[in-house]
């Protein structure tokens, strides 16, 4: 079970990112929880200044824009 957090105040790119992670996970049959974090204090705790940011199992793996599909698949396949 992988735990994703999408950091962002609810802009369009954040929406797209969360959807993409969920969709790719379903496609690959990986079990995930995707949580959208919109609270600014929480977002800043990760040091993110460009949203959306992506946190995988507690570690920041991406900031500043919708990630590439291939990048998302790499996250899903990683151990």
């Amino acid at each position, binding site marked *: 079970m992988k735990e994703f957090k999408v950091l*962002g*105040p609810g*802009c*369009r*790119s*954040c929406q797209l990112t969360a959807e993409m992670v969920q969709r790719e996970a379903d496609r690959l049959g990986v079990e995930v929880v995707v949580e959208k974090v919109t609270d*600014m*204090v929480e*977002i*800043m*705790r*990760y*040091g*993110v*200044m*460009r*949203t959306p940011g992506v946190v995988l199992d507690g*570690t*920041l*793996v*991406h*900031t*500043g*824009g*919708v*990630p*590439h599909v*291939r*990048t998302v698949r790499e996250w899903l396949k990683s151990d």
Partner: protein
Amino acid sequence: MFRMFTRLADVVAYGWLGLDPATRSAAAVHFFVEDVTKIFALLVTVIFVMGLFRSMLSPERVRVYLEGRSRWAAYVMAVVLGAVTPFCSCSSVPLFIGFVEAGIPVGATMAFLITSPMVNEVAVVLLFALLGWKLTVLYVATGLVVGIAGGALIDTLRLERWVEEYVWKIRVGAVDLPGQRPTVAIRIRYAWGQVREILDRIWAYVLVGIGLGAVLHGYVPQDFFARYAGAANPLAVPLAVIAGVPMYSNASGVIPVAEALLGKGVPVGTVLALMMSVVALSLPEMIILRKVLTVRMLAFFAGYLAVSFVAVGYLFNAIQL
């Protein structure tokens, strides 16, 4: 190099659609086809090429550059970095908090936020392609100066007291993104991602802007603006700034409108004032910034921008380039 787009528009408007070149609809269609093809071709190229180079430049890094600089060095660097750093207005709030928390003056942070939407590589390339280098230089220089002066004014008046209290209490975590050198493949992937993301965000504004430009170009009589918005009318500049407030677009959407207005003989200063007002004075941006700034600060911010754009308009109308 840009002539191929004119030819393409010739073929579409006069050939395929069989319009008579002397008619208004032909002029509008021609303008629309030429600008749509030219602008989108330029946008894709510019965003892709810039994306290749700047996967390294980020607000996180700008923050490190600005930290601990002397006041004036911070303003100048803030506006220059604001012009070249990829940044979307939806990130205004985290960026603001991140900068201020690092001890960067509120004024320098605001200078970055003023300049970033106005001056960027997309605006520069479109300005250059559609309006020529003179206006490009004017626009960029004015954008930088308005940003620096605004930042300096905010710090001189000690307006940091108009920042929401909670901002000062936030502690920002250290960024621990994996820092490996990007390979060429990763850069290309990033650059394409930028093209898709930026186009996805701006294409509608650009199309509306070109459409509006085409209507102005084709259907508004040549002397219409000369009569009402000419240099002889001293109210034209403030009216242009006021007209720009409810209109919200990014720089790439407003440039085709500017092109059409200049073609109709509206003076350069008035057009610049309108462009800057449309791009920088935007209600959505203010609503986003309300999360970190008090209403007073937002009112000051909007007032300062409006006054400086009017000043810019009068100045360039007076020197008549």
